[in-house]
């Protein structure tokens, strides 16, 4: 009769190397657990790194300042084994004793490993605005998504296709969100992110006129100060309405919509249009739901057992964190990563304490 030794506990499998996955891995490693971090892409950091976010709302902190230390910690920590370009193909067993198959996408090799618990943090994808051809996204290079604008802001050079700096820029909110034909939900962050970008654009292009075409401004919680600041300090214009069509005329874009506060139709030429594309569950989430037999809700996000407690997947030993459960900001994803790590530690501690015959 004895208690389990730490070394008898299998490593924890974390799926997804974004903010939530990284934070969970780091926290578990710090607690002394072995971690296997499986990432589909060739780099860690998730959406903020993949799309090259310049800064994070609401404080406009550089992304590297937030994500850099985490990535460094995880990559440099002996307790964490990082498997890039890999996906989890299936898992059998339960808490304490999972057998997981991981496939390397580069060479096709599969590896079977043992895991004590699994944290799913597969994140989200940006809505592909090509699906909704009204916006002309993908056909006109001056119509870009917020994720692409982040990259441009990071380079410090926001220009049109022809190399000119844009003078009049429109942000269109709720692209692909809150629409029965595409995605029904609100993505929660793109109002704040768009406003943040508008402020940064104002720094970069002092003479630019920026118009935000919105249905509702949803800058939750403390993000609200972005909204206030953008109006009071930066003179950014807000038009309440939704855009019916973007049509390219020469190198300008004709934006057609209704100003619902005036009840007047507007058809105004813009130099550049930024689409606040929403979030949707990515193919990674669908794949992992299939591989681990997880419940998916009506929108395609992973469904926790209890709607208010995100980390509980409903399957013993499998935990959820981050934007694979619902759209959320980076700060929330980090917190959820930590929370999931905490739950895993709790379960493994219980397992350790259990008396082995």
């Amino acid at each position, binding site marked *: 009769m004895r208690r389990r030794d730490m070394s008898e506990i299998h490593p924890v499998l974390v799926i997804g190397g974004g903010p939530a996955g990284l934070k969970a891995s780091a926290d578990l490693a710090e607690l002394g657990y072995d971690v296997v971090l499986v990432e589909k892409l060739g780099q860690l950091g998730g959406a903020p790194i993949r799309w090259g976010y310049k800064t994070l709302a609401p404080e406009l902190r550089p992304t590297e300042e937030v994500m850099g230390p985490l990535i460094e910690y995880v990559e440099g920590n002996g307790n964490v084994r990082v498997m890039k370009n890999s996906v989890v193909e299936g898992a059998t067993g339960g808490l304490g004793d999972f057998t997981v198959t991981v496939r390397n996408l580069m060479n096709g090799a599969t590896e079977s490993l043992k895991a004590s618990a699994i944290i799913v943090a597969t994140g989200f994808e940006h809505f592909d605005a090509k*699906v*909704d*051809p009204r916006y002309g996204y993908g056909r006109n290079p001056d119509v870009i998504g917020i994720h692409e604008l982040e990259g441009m802001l990071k380079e410090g050079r926001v220009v049109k296709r022809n190399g000119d700096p844009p003078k009049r820029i429109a942000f269109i909110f709720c692209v692909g969100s809150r629409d029965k*034909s595409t995605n029904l939900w609100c993505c929660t962050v793109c109002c704040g992110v768009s406003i943040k970008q508008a402020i940064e654009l104002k720094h970069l292009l002092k003479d630019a006129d920026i118009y935000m075409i919105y249905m509702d401004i949803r800058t939750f919680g403390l993000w609200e100060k972005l909204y206030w600041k953008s109006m009071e300090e930066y003179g950014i214009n807000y038009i309440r309405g939704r855009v019916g069509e973007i*049509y390219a005329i020469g190198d300008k874009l004709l934006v057609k919509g209704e100003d619902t506060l005036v009840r007047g139709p507007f058809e105004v030429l813009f130099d550049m249009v930024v689409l606040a594309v929403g979030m949707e569950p990515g193919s990674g989430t669908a794949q992992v739901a*299939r591989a681990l037999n997880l419940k998916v*809700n009506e*929108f*395609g996000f992973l469904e926790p057992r209890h709607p208010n407690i995100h980390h509980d997947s409903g399957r013993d030993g499998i935990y959820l964190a981050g934007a694979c459960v619902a759209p959320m900001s980076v700060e929330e994803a980090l917190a959820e990563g930590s929370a999931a790590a905490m739950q895993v530690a709790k379960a493994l501690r219980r397992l350790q304490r259990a008396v082995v015959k």
Partner: protein
Amino acid sequence: MERVELGKEEVEVKPDQWKLFERAVFAAKAKLTYGTVEEYLKMLERMKELERNGEITVFHVEEEFEPVTVKTLSGRRKRIPTVELWQHKSCGQCGHIPGYVTSLYWIMSQLGVPYVDDTNQTSCTAWNYYGSGTSNPVALTAVFLRNMHVAWERNAYPLIHCGTSYGDYKEVRFMAVMSRELRERVRQILKKIDRDIVIPEELVHYSEWLHVVRHRIAERKKYDVSNVSVAVHAACHTYKLMPEDYTYEDDVLDGVRPAPTTSVALALGARVVDYRNWYDCCGFGFRHILTEREISRSFAYFRKVQPIVRETGADVLLTHDTGCVTTLDKSQVVPLAHGYKETVPVMSDSQFAALAMGAHPFTVCQLHWHVSDWKELMTKMGIDWERRLEEHKRYVEEVKKRVREPEFIRSPGRRLRPRKDSRELSS
């Protein structure tokens, strides 16, 4: 487990997860996602079910109609019959733009397509419904089913000339299939006129027919139209009213705009130009064209004609609906009197195709009924319109004096036998 295509990836979906991926799959396939794709496909399923139960007869697009498959907005494959067609004429076109229908018949006779031009046909009566509310779904459905029943008796597949009839038929078909109450109510009425419910498997607009035979038309092209720039106006009721079922092709305007008409112009070798208000309606407005033409003409001119001419300098504006041809054509007169100089000839795609195939511009295409100035276009196409107009005038004169009989366009001999032909064709 079922395999579905999601974007580029193929994924396996469990039955209980199917619903979740369904929309995404259609979205990826359809590109355009507005409308009620799911409901529409559900309706088609329901139609099959009703047929199995023996409640309705479905008029299938059998092989004998030599169908060609096209893709619709919903990603569904639609079979367009190409021969043995029942001409569902339009109540607007026959009155004041006869060139529309004559050109279509002429093309068919040239291509050897047998058709039935029936006298036992009413209009869909939907103009009155949309324009003025003087009808109701029961009447509309009954008229629809009556006309379809006649076509079924004739064993010729209905080809709908009018955009509104096409849209309205799609709408009432949806209602008739989905609402038992409505269906039974209409069945009672149909009994009184000795008919039953026959629903066509596909509702086909004539522009879709032109679309699928466009290469055959192009082969018979007589005039070079490569120096002609064409602007296209798609009729609202073809692609906005029940939008799921209209034809889209990946290689025509990226597959994000309706394909017919544009595809015909492209196949003929013309240059298709795009303009900012492509999506706007023509200004017909149903009630407006009859009772408030000031609104109609202002719209047609300031939102369509003027921007088209200013931006693209198009040589011709093609469309595929009676109302659109009328409104866009006739609305250019008053602005001209006001001093707005921009004008563009307007005609239907069937007229343009027939012209390119060498049809007589006046005796067949009946262009002299159009108000807008087509002379420049004809010169550009290389048609000696002055001589042709003389010819036509002489012909009319001779017909008037009964020196000669009018030369009617006739359908090539039919191969299919009518199911029932108690009522004689034509009076």
